């Protein structure tokens, strides 16, 4: 008896989860953050509901500080696949002048991402939101369910999670409650890249090494994507061969020096790397258990 290779098993599991939500939720949405995990999630959703169109829209909570290449890629993807995309910006945050450079990563993430996401979910009445989060990314994510129940205020209660035996998801919820659903829970970074290679899934070019303008700040290489990133005294812009392992708001995402300009190169580099994927994400390092605290407040 042949056993299915693990990528096929992961794919089938994710498709099952996507379908289970569409069969049981009132108004689902896919949180599309443009990165590689979102690309894989979108690809799996297209497979799950083929030959039909996606039975839900995509939602991008735009902080206004994404790399320009990400926005270009997003709009091109939506056009190519004929998708429905909702872009939500927290206008209150914009009016209050919140930005990652002056306000700091913590306030910026809370207002523009967490509050923005909650606003959008409430505004459109979505009761199930797919996210591309994986359990191998961070310790508190490792303990989150695939169907993560959120209270009417979108809070996560890590101590009161429903058990998920087999593939039997308890999809019951009360009015006002909602689910965050993570079809990629059991995928690792290596699985995501192997699958992108196997399925030939387009991703944002920023993942591939290229000469780009960067500023070295506090040991991190920040790409100067536009003029909004002010230079501190003594700082200079240099052109270096870099790429990104994860993509977020550009002033909060560290680049790595790399020569990997192809998928094979990325996979080889990842296998040899001694640093974790989220090392470059400044938002994760706001104190111990900070992801857990953010999730409790409604961050996905």
């Amino acid at each position, binding site marked *: 008896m042949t056993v*299915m*290779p693990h990528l096929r098993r992961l794919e089938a599991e994710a498709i099952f989860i996507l379908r289970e939500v569409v069969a049981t939720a009132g108004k689902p949405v896919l949180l599309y953050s443009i990165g590689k995990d979102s690309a894989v999630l979108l690809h799996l959703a297209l497979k799950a509901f*083929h030959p039909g169109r996606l039975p839900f829209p995509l939602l991008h909570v735009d902080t206004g500080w994404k790399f320009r290449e990400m926005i270009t890629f997003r709009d091109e993807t939506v056009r190519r696949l004929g998708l429905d995309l909702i872009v939500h910006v927290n206008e209150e945050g914009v009016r209050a002048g919140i930005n990652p450079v002056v306000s700091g990563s913590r306030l910026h993430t809370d207002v523009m991402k967490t509050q923005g996401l909650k606003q959008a979910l409430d505004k459109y009445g979505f009761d199930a939101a797919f996210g591309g989060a994986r359990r191998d990314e961070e310790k508190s994510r490792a303990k989150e369910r695939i169907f993560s129940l959120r209270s009417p205020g979108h809070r996560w209660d890590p101590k009161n999670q429903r058990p998920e035996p087999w593939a039997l998801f308890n999809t019951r919820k009360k009015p006002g409650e909602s689910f965050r659903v993570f079809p990629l829970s059991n995928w690792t970074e290596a699985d995501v890249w192997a699958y992108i290679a196997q399925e030939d899934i387009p991703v944002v070019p920023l993942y591939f090494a290229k000469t780009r303008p960067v500023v070295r700040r506090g040991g991190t290489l920040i790409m100067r994507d536009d003029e909004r990133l002010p230079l501190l005294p003594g700082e200079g812009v240099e052109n270096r061969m870099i790429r990104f392992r994860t993509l977020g708001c550009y002033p909060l995402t560290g680049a790595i020096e790399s020569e990997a300009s192809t998928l094979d190169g990325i996979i080889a580099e990842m296998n040899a790397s001694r640093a*974790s994927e989220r090392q470059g994400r400044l938002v994760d390092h706001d104190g111990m258990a900070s992801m857990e605290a953010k999730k409790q407040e409604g961050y996905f």
Partner: protein
Amino acid sequence: MDAAFQQATMPDAAMPDAAAHGGRDARTLLRFITCGSVDDGKSTLIGRLLYEAGAVFDDQLTALDSDSARLGTTGGARDFALLVDGLAAEREQGITIDVAYRYFSTPRRSFIVADTPGHEQYTRNMATGASTADAAILLVDARKGLLAQTRRHSCIVAAMGVRQIVVAVNKMDLVGFDEGVFRAIEAEYARIAAPLGFLRITAIPVCAREGDNLAAGSSRMPWYRGEALLPLLDMIEPGARGARDAAFAMPVQWVNRPDADFRGFSGTIASGQVRRGDVVTVLPSGRESSIARIVTRDGDRENAHADEAVTLVLADEVDVSRGDVLTAASAVRASARPRTRDVIEARLIVTGEAPMRVGAAFLVKLGTAMTGATLTAIRDMVDIESYASVAAETLGMNAIGHVTLRFDKPLVLTDFAANAVLGGFILIDRATNETRAFGFVLPDPPMRMARETPLARLVARGFGPAGSAQRKARLEVVTWRLFSALAVAGIVAALTGMAAFAMIAGLADLVLRPLARMLHHALWLKLHARQDAELLDGGGI
């Protein structure tokens, strides 16, 4: 609409291995669970395994070292347990509360580890981790030997269907790497696990903190000639969740109807395989049709197998909805063939805090179907430490019991032992939506009538299900009434010698006595304003 909408035919006669799909990665996936008592070193073992397998990165090691100095239980030395205890409460208390999933790989396969808590109050989290596991690693502290918890964990793991056990006898350094200690634990475990029916039990002496016998053999235990833990995990055969050699069955998850021209039934195949042209039966309706297309975004397929997510198009317009099961008749064991039932025997593991009582109503989710369910009888409870069957009125949290359930509408199911997809279910609280129990379909009892007659149904309603304690008690009352009426008739017949007279006296006794009893009881209540169910049940006196 994208290009993949256009149909293409991709012959796929071979098993869906990596080559057939053009995949680069042919590694298999093994899921396992680790369980043990508090302080057995479970989290340390996993943390160390991740480290040995190269899945811990430098920045994580740096964070670990600073966490170890602050929170560690190892006097400042690197505490591998902190790699996996993720929730703030866990790090503060130094225990594992929730099941955590961890990932690592070797050149041969990828692993998903469910690190589960040992505390009894978190049993449901352990059962969750076990539900998808191909194997279980049971931690035993060499100094303490087997504990009541070891027996409890073994029982739960067995109940959840795990068939391969690795007994990791940890902290061998603290018993001087003594072979005698290890052999005694190995033999004792083989003895206690005998009733649980595991397929394979392997014992390994380890020292998780120092890494002995994890990635490679240990020079400190030359007497151990077996495999180290990682090489052993590389060799364990993962079980396909849906058995390939069983009859085809697919619970319909979602009806894909994008326009008037296309109607497909999406689902993940639970067992067996299906080919284009196969005749299928829709359960529970029993309607037949055949497979016209097996649709995927990568093109139509000729066949598909257990565990694959597909969309099937039938040749005829038949009524199919979510919760129905598409099946193919085939010459397989009756126990593996899906059957339609509205009353089942089942084992439950209670996961909710409130005890479960006879008469309680729930929602049941089985496969993709959901309906109402009533607990009609509790037959017994398993003492999860002695594995003995004991009588029980209710099933409290963490209890394992044998029950009878009645569904509001018939469900398509199989025995859990034959297939977990159509044999495992959950019971959901109607008010709180909490998951109250995990359930396992047991074989139909041998005495059960193939189809319930209206009379049997009436008897079941009045007296409780066949074989239940409730039915026995009520039957005793009824037979005692009949016996006493016969006795009255007999006495009257003996005294008067008139049969008609005796019959009237007997019938009068049968009818009037309960009426008189009720009248008396009502008067008594009025006088004493107190009700005693026990006394009322003494009817027939």
